């Protein structure tokens, strides 16, 4: 494990990361070594030989000062640019990534695939495909950290943050919580299993069925009466949700917001926060009536409502074409699906 981590980067990002990291180690190591050598050399070479010594009184040298101001600055700017480029790569998921919804709570990770598969503290993914994690927390701040892929992202309550990775080598990789979250913080550990596609389909076949995330969401959409107002013909009293995801929405204050996961979530739990221009808010507040898991399902459903009702929304679920909505949902071996969750006492 240790050796694998150091020398065998299991993803493209990790390989690029290691390049930058070890170049930084080399540059900084050489400079540190040079400084240390210079100091030790001076300390020995110019060691005081008699109490009466008075060395030449040199007070400075402008050229030297400018050199060691400007040269580090240039090197630093290079580091900054390279680091920022890598960061953009880490932060911006490719459009065709499989979306996994992550709900963190003290002290476990709940991960759900679009086809409804639920896992706890474990995630099985096929190699060679990008995976995007859409994460939220039910309680305090957590942080999703997979050292092998060199990714980390804090998971916040009341908001969605995202991170992505694409395993290129099969293996079992540690998943840690990296933001201190209370008593069993160090127990909030899991594994990412990256599998060859063939093994992955075998593994998929073992699990039991459960509806897809979007179909669960659809049930909730009717169960909570959302469909009574949100019509898909554009004539209802409330905004039409067709093709809403990723669209620019004009709100009453005159500003526009992008209808991403966080906006949809906010509009469900606290409908009055950003009202679509031209509408009056009649919607009840769902703040304490939906669990994070139910919210995730609803959002998956709303995202799945394409421009025409009933069609699948292509961009968000792009990488599971054959299975989306139709294929029976599957639970990973040995991980019972969780439905709902325990109420959290404050």
């Amino acid at each position, binding site marked *: 494990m240790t050796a694998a981590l150091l020398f065998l980067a299991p993803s493209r990002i990790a390989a690029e990361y290691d390049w930058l990291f070890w170049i930084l180690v080399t540059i900084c190591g050489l400079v540190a070594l040079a400084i240390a050598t210079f100091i030790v050399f001076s300390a020995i070479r110019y060691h005081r030989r008699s109490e009466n010594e008075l060395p030449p009184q040199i007070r400075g040298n402008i050229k030297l000062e400018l050199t060691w101001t400007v040269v580090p600055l240039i090197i630093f700017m290079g*580091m900054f640019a390279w680091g920022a480029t890598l960061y953009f790569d880490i932060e911006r998921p490719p459009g065709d990534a499989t979306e996994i919804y992550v709900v963190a709570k003290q002290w476990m990770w709940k991960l759900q695939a679009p086809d409804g598969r639920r896992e706890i503290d474990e995630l099985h993914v096929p190699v060679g495909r990008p995976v995007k994690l859409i994460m939220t927390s039910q309680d305090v701040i957590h942080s999703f950290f997979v050292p092998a892929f060199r990714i980390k992202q804090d998971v*916040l309550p009341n908001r969605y943050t995202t991170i992505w990775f694409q395993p290129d080598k099969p293996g079992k990789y540690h998943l840690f919580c990296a933001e201190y979250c*209370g008593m069993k913080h160090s127990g909030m550990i899991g594994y990412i299993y990256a599998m060859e596609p063939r093994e992955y389909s075998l593994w998929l076949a073992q699990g039991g069925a459960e509806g897809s995330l979007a179909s669960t969401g659809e049930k909730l959409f009717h169960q909570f009466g959302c469909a009574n107002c949100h019509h898909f013909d554009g004539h209802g009293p409330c905004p039409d949700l067709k093709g809403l995801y990723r669209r620019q929405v004009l709100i009453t204050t005159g500003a526009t917001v992008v209808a991403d996961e966080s906006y949809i979530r906010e509009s469900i739990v606290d409908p009055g926060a950003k009202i679509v221009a031209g509408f009056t808010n009649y919607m009840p507040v769902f703040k304490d009536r939906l669990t994070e898991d139910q919210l995730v399902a609803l959002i998956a459903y709303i995202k799945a409502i394409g421009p025409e009702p009933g069609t699948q929304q292509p961009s968000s679920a792009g990488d599971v074409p054959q299975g989306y909505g139709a294929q029976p949902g599957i639970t990973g071996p040995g991980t019972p699906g969780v439905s709902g969750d325990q109420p959290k006492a404050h």
Partner: protein
Amino acid sequence: MTPVLETAVAPNYLNETHGIRSWLLTLDHKRIGILYVASITVFFFLGGLFALLMRLELLAPRAWLLSPEEYNKLFTMHGIIMVWFFLIPSIPNTLGNFFIPMMIGANDVAFPKLNLLSWYVFNLGGAITVFALVRGGVDTGWTFYTPFSTTYSTTYVTAAALGIFIAGFSSIMTGLNFIATIHRMRAPGMTWFRLPMFIWSHYATSLILVLATPVLAITLLMMAVERIFQVGIFDPALGGDPVLFQHMFWFYSHPAVYIMVLPGMAVISEIVPTFSRKPLFGYTFVALASMCIAVIGFLVWGHHMFVAGLSVYSAMGFSFLSYLVAVPSAIKVFNWSATMYKGSISWDTPMLYAIGFIGLFTIGGMTGLFLAALGVDVHVTDTYFVIAHFHYIMVGGTVMAFLGGIHYFWPKITGRLYPEGLARLSALIVFIGFNLTFFPQFVLGYLGMPRRYAVYPIEFHMLNVLSTAGASILGVGYVFPLFYLVWSWKYGKKSGPNPWRATGLEWTSDSPPPKENFEVTPVVTGPPYDFERMREELGLG
């Protein structure tokens, strides 16, 4: 009148008045400095004890000595006590208090009563924090991140925050006092560019103290209000934003890093010239570098939040500014090194600590470059890499500088010399123990061991054992000076006013100095670090 008789009866700040009252009610900046030494020594060993217990627990991957709850409380209390009750006051309130007035030729700070009040307020804050500890401890981490601290933790968060809040006022008083002192109390002829570097660095430190500490105070106050009344400020369940808390917290706590390290740089900038017998190389650049650190240091707090949900563009800005603040630190390192070049270098203990400081601070600073690079930070932040990084700055930097400074100024403070051989030995032990403790942690962090883990996967075991072994050596290295310094206060060799042949005004006064510091107000006519004046004294005239 024989010299012996003169030194035996010369009235000084220590023997002029006697008794507990004369100490507890003193307005003399030198005595207040010593009161602070006593306080922070207690807190240092308390915080160190917590660290030792943590290292012991981490000797095995599973919980064998402490439960996870106990471990969580230990790292929290270690952080709180070391940051606010040792590092921040460590050098400014002890050596700074003692020597700022002496170095600028004043006979006290601008506001002596405020100075004494600051010590009492500091101890009150410390007492409340220790009370929180005795009653059951705190488990939020020293960063008090919401909503864990406001809603979920069931420990003594409010009491600990109150202790820190109160200690913050002590910081503000000290910073205010130093700024007023440095502006208004300088001796005739002591212009800004004749000030020793010690003063410049402390001036920069004080700026940060007064401008950053109030923000910590209000942040903790808001957190406490939220916790006590359960109204929403930062908790998202109540309509708040926890990232706002992090912004406010790091607006203070990042500059606070410079509060801790700038005074260390102050001490090193005195020791290196004295023991190289050469003026500080590039004086103006080092002075301006201190000011740049103080100002730019306020613009970089976001680099603690690169994975915390900060916007990508904001992160880019903070990363860029973080690289800018690295430049002045680099300038300082280069100038200290250049000062040694072609000097007449003695290997006395303070110089050994200074050399150690430069080396360790360089490593600490350079690993900071890793953390400032956005993409690199993602993997190593919140891991042991960060722990190692800031311990190289705080322990390898500030604590080394503090020990170096205590040894350097010991003859002036007490009039006695410490035992040189023993001191060199313990400097060596500290250096070895330190590196053995913290270098493996860089590797641990790169391998992905998250911080604040009470138990950890087995693959991290070997490096943790190494680190714990180092910690036990480090502990010994810290206990040594405590004993021999106390011993030498009474039994050490008499030092005379200027045992190191240093140049500052403080060395022109007796050791220990008289209560009013100088018999007559000194008049300054030349630049600092003027070793030429010594030519005659050295018999080279």
